[in-house]
């Protein structure tokens, strides 16, 4: 019931929102999707990757390049991008876990992988290096281009709903249970016959593929892809902020966290002492930072644990 009501409200929101608010809501839904995609690896399986911008970038570049070079509709291109990111993520995980890299070292290796990818993309003429690739604004729904904001909103909403359903199903599936077992105690999981090498690899690969969908959406919404927009740390940060503040390893925590961060930015916009846009952006980032620190100190399980304690 709650889910149906929430969905009905979400579906009706664009009717009441102006163009500015609508954009903010699209960005919020997109952030929540990314957070849940990262959460598959970092939250459920405990594999704290710092290199997910790489998979986001693969998604953004794959659908864009396939559309411009081969005329493949990005609706299909995003699935190719996801497959590609899944393969890259899987291979990376196979290599990294083979050498028993874990914890902080795993975080640094994945961060390094994303940095290497950015350096390579900056020097790869085929994808126009640091200049990046522009898409043309047009009315072509069949190719994932819309002139109005509303269709993007509904696409972002549908993607997020699908992502929540995937997360919930994962939680209840044997695969999800294996992820949890590996996260909680890898040795114990191994001892009871769980092939941790295999499940960690699957977690990264799956999470990478899902993240790539977000990258493709980004490209279609902003109509521009470059190493300095999709292969930097920013997308990774968006995923982590929402997930860790909302509650890692849950299907709704990352959504709550992401919507909260996006909502905060909007709320700060209306404060009297922050008049310039620059002030708003800087001010909201400082508030995010304090919120992040406070939540992690006092509510290590994220905001979602507040609800659990009350219930």
């Amino acid at each position, binding site marked *: 019931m709650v889910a149906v009501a929430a969905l009905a409200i979400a579906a009706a929101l664009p009717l009441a929102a102006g163009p500015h608010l609508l954009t903010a809501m699209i960005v919020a839904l997109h952030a929540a999707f990314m957070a849940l995609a990262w959460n598959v690896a970092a939250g459920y399986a405990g594999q704290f990757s710092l290199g997910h911008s790489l998979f986001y970038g693969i998604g953004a570049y794959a659908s864009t390049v396939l559309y411009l070079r081969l005329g493949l509709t990005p609706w299909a291109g995003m699935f190719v991008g996801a497959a590609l990111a899944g393969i890259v993520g899987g291979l990376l995980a196979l290599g*990294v876990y083979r050498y028993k890299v874990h914890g902080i070292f795993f975080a640094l290796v994945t961060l390094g992988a994303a*940095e290497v990818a950015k350096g390579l993309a900056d020097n790869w003429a085929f994808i126009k290096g640091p200049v990046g690739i522009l898409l043309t604004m047009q009315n072509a729904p069949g190719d994932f281009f819309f002139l109005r904001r509303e269709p993007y909103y509904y696409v972002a909403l549908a993607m997020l709903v699908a992502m929540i359903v995937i997360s919930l199903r994962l939680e209840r599936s044997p695969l999800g249970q294996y992820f949890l077992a590996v996260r909680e105690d890898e040795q114990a999981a191994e001892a009871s016959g769980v092939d941790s090498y295999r499940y960690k690899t699957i977690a990264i690969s799956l999470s990478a593929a899902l993240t790539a969908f977000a990258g493709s959406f980004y490209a279609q919404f902003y109509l521009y892809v470059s190493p300095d927009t999709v292969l930097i740390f920013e997308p990774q940060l968006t995923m982590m902020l929402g997930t860790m503040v909302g509650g890692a390893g849950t299907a709704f925590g990352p959504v709550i966290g992401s919507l909260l961060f996006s909502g905060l930015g909007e709320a700060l916009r209306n404060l009297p002492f922050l008049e310039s846009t620059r002030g708003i952006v800087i001010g909201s980032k400082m508030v*995010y930072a304090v919120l*992040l620190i406070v939540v*992690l100190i006092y509510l290590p399980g994220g905001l979602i644990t507040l609800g659990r304690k009350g219930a």
Partner: protein
Amino acid sequence: MIGLDVILQAGLSGLFMGSVYALIAIGFTLVFGVTNIVNFAHGHFVMGAMFVTYLLFKTLKVDPYVGLVVVLPLFFALGSLIYRLVIQRIVEAPHSAHMMVTLGLLIFIENLANLFFGGDLRGITTTYTTSSLVLGAVSVPIARLGAAAVSLAAVVGLALVLHRTSLGKAIRAAANNPEGAALVGIDVGRVYRVAFSLGTAAAALAGAVIMPFSLVSPFVGGEFILKAFVIAVLGGLGSVAGALIGGLLIGLVEALSSLYIQASLGNAIVFAILIVVLLYRPWGILGQARV
């Protein structure tokens, strides 16, 4: 064809910058070795000290080296304050929480700097900013030589503190075995705080001495922390001697590779080295050296 003199020149400036990187990385690796915390905000302490040095020079005409009498105590105290307010409360938490909280610090510091100074690159011009000593085919820039000399002296100083003083003994004891250290009467909490403050001051020292020949903006911190990661891992996380060698090595690789390839590709190579080291020698190139 690139001449030998050019290569020598690049190698020299690589070693100079490498010494500064080493100091930054040693601060980072000291904090990790002792408290087990990976401090993502460490590079932003470098940036903060650059801005304080900039401000001292622009408003009071204080030379960056003279300004150290303000910058070092200030950042030691700041490190201590941040430790008490934030770090202390998450020392026992998992690594993921360490990373997120220090990322939070990073975002806060970066935006605080952005609020006060804006996003433009700023620099200062001291009397020695452009002076050089000419030695045969190479010219030695005074400002960079000074930065390297002070950094190396600080590294030696830190090593002496760690190995020759009772404070150093307490730090090493707490790093190797916190429970045992507590049992023999060492105030482990205080040792952690001092180590964090020392690490912060090391970053600040590096920031101050590079100011005569560097530009600062709120966004330069990321560059330093990425270098510190690579160097600390190369030397073995927690190893001071390893970080010194790693710093010089990365300085050299950076300077020499810039002669032949794009900077962005050079960066990719540095991170490829990081990955290879993490896979094959996660304890660093020197072996299992500890603080």
